[in-house]
Structure formats: structure tokens, C-alpha cells
């Protein structure tokens, strides 16, 4: 190696360790029943962590850099975006500012986590940076970001930083790779969790089966109706065939699901319904999906 390479490597190494050192105080470890994760201080007294790695029940503790474990309470969790929010009685923990932008594919990223009160670090590149996507559970995620690093056990919820040391996402485990929940998504979801304790989902109160109409157009047939649900109140019946929403033909059941985002509750949609061969438009005011175990559809 030449002197120049050595200098460059030393400089890179020092930059990375400086970024880790600067960030460590804003990262915590999260300890819940049989589960270990990382988290970061989102706002004073509020910790964002990976939903998947947070136990459903039992005590939760947060351990800041160089400190003792602090008892935390669950404010809310959203499994569709893998974000959970915790509250601790410690407003002095430094906040990790989140960037609304993200580095391009190929850019270096340092993942800073924590384990039992001391920082952990991993270096990798942004292996994919694409547009917004929808998770399997229907969560809207603002960018498809992947890192070529493998997270250590308890590493979910760590912060991903760019070369300047700006945090731009939270690292979670995806299938076979590490994915990042972008800062923009975290800001939006965590703010809703702080306010409502959950991410509400729209609800028709219908059991729908994908069918094709006699002229071979995609449609959704009403197989069951929740008697207390919004669709029942609007007069939708079992056996009705939904072929359109708000003036457009549906591409399948997913077109109806798309209309049920968190902001849809209380708004009205016009469903084009075929009943006994005749079409009519039925206006439905979207309700909120009952929580698990409360509604007849679970």
C-alpha cells in the first residue's frame, strides 16, 4: 500500500467512527419480553423502534448510551410499516434528527445501533433506492431502500446514516435483506401513533370475493356483510357485485382496498353495484376497521 492509500483509509475510518460517536447518544437498545431491538430518540421522551421486534405484551425497557435501563410504555404500533413508538420519562435524551431525503443507490451508509448500553456499527452501501411501495400488510412506505448489510441479532430498529452522518431511515429485516423505513414514513407514522396510538384503517364491512362479470370484467362479489358495518347501512346486500368505485371500473378487490387508507375514514365513496342484472350507484361512508377481536370479521 502507498502512503496515499493509507491516508485515505485512515481518513475514511476516522470519519466513520466520528459519525458513530456523534450518533451513539441518540440511539437506545430496546428490551421487551424475549426480544431485543434498537431504537432512536424521535422526539423528547419518545423512542421509535421496529414493530416486528417489539413483544406484544409485557414490560419494555429502553437503555440509552452508557446508562441504565429505563422503563418504557408502548404508545402505539403499526405493523404495516414496521414502526412502533415508545414513551420514556426522560426528556433529556438527545433527539436524532431525520432527513426527509435519502442517498442514491451505491452511497455508503453507516448503521448505528446499540446493545446493552453501548453502540454498535455496520457499514454498507445503499443497494436499492426506488420509489414508494406498499408493504404486504398494506402500509404505504415512501421509498424502497435496501442496504447490503446483515443486521445483528437485536439490530432491528437501528438508524441508517449517510456519509455526512444524517439519519435517513430505520433498518429492519426484510426477506433475505435489510430494508430501511425512510425518515419521511417514520415522521408521518410516528406522528399519527403519538396522536391516536394506532394507524386507523378504512372499513366497508364486506367480505369480498374476486369474480369476473359475464362480459369478463374484474369485479368483487359481496359474500358477507357486517350487519353493523358502513356498507350495510348504505344498503349493500349479500350477492351484490361491485364493478366500479368513484366513477372508475375496478381492477379487482385491491382497487377497493386502495380506497381504505388511513385518511379515508369519514369520507364517502360511490360504488357501482350490479344487482339482479341492473346497475346502480350506492354511496358508502367509510368507517374505521374494528380492532382485532372487536369486529365480527376479526
Amino acid at each position: 500500500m502507498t502512503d496515499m492509500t493509507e491516508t485515505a483509509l485512515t481518513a475514511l475510518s476516522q470519519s466513520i467512527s466520528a459519525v458513530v460517536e456523534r450518533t451513539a447518544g441518540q440511539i437506545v437498545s430496546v428490551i421487551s419480553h424475549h426480544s431485543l431491538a434498537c431504537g432512536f430518540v424521535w422526539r423528547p421522551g419518545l423512542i421509535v423502534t421496529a414493530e416486528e421486534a417489539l413483544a406484544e405484551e409485557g414490560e419494555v425497557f429502553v437503555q440509552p448510551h452508557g446508562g441504565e435501563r429505563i422503563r418504557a410504555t408502548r404508545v402505539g404500533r403499526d405493523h404495516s410499516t414496521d414502526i412502533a413508538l415508545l414513551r420514556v420519562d426522560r426528556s433529556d435524551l438527545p433527539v436524532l434528527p431525520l432527513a426527509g431525503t435519502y442517498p442514491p443507490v451505491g452511497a455508503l451508509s453507516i448503521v448505528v445501533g446499540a446493545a446493552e448500553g453501548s453502540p454498535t456499527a455496520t457499514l454498507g452501501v445503499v443497494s436499492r433506492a426506488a420509489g414508494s411501495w406498499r408493504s404486504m400488510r398494506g402500509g404505504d412506505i415512501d421509498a424502497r431502500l435496501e442496504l447490503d448489510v446483515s443486521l445483528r441479532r437485536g439490530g432491528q430498529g437501528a438508524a441508517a446514516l449517510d456519509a455526512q452522518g444524517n439519519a435517513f431511515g430505520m433498518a429492519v429485516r426484510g426477506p433475505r435483506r435489510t430494508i430501511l423505513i425512510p425518515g419521511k414514513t417514520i415522521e408521518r407514522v410516528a406522528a399519527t401513533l403519538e396522536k391516536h396510538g394506532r394507524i386507523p384503517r378504512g372499513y366497508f364491512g364486506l367480505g369480498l370475493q374476486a369474480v369476473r362479470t359475464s362480459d369478463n370484467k374484474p369485479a368483487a362479489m359481496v359474500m358477507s356483510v357486517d350487519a353493523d358495518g358502513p356498507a350495510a347501512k348504505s344498503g349493500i346486500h349479500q350477492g351484490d357485485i361491485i364493478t366500479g368505485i368513484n366513477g372508475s371500473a375496478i381492477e379487482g378487490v385491491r382497487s377497493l382496498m386502495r380506497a381504505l387508507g388511513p385518511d379515508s375514514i369519514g369520507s364517502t365513496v360511490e360504488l357501482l353495484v350490479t344487482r339482479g342484472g341492473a346497475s346502480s350507484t350506492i354511496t358508502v361512508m367509510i368507517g374505521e376497521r374494528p380492532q382485532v377481536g372487536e369486529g365480527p370479521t376479526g
Partner: protein
Amino acid sequence: MTDKDAGDLVISVEVDDAVIAERIVRLLGNVSGIRLSSGSDAADLTIIRQSPPESDLGLTTREKDVLVLLAEGASNKAIAKQLGISVHTAKFHVGSLLEKFDATGRTDVVAHAARLGVIHL
């Protein structure tokens, strides 16, 4: 030695595709020790064509149940509760679904789930 061991092996061909059925009959028809069932006598074994899997992802029955609930936005806990399995098992099925969807580059979970059953929205 029973009669069955001694006699010809009687095979019945019940393949709905006529071309394939004819080919099998032609191939097996001249093999000594094998006799093709004429329909009236009891066959020792029957050749049938396995129906193609409903889903090209090769999902198990349990995975299909989990997929439909996933598409409705259920959490692992809700899936576990609904199907009467542990949260750990639910997580396992979700993980394997993620793998299968990811491997085939598919993202439209709802569309897939809708083909498998009723979705509650």
C-alpha cells in the same frame, strides 16, 4: 404368493387429456406383466394427472389462510388468534410467504389473496 403377485398388474388410465391418455396406453400396452384395465375389472393402480397447484407460488394451505389475513392487514397476533396458532408459528408462515413473494418478484399481495378466498374489507 397371492394371485395378485402372480398375475398381471392391472393399470387404469384416467387422464382427462385424451392425447396424453392415448400415449400412456400406447406405451404401456405392450409391456409384459402390465395389463390395462378395460374399465370393468378392478385396477391395481390408477394413473391420474395431479391437478396443477392453485397458486403458482406453491403455497401451502396454511400459507393461503395466512395470506388472506395478511392482505386484510392483520398483525401476526391477529393471524395467530384467528387461525388458533401461536404468534411464533404465524410469524414463521408470514416469513415464508415473504420469501416466496420476494423470490418471484411479486408485490401485489391483495390480488393474490383475492384469488384464494374472501377478503374482509
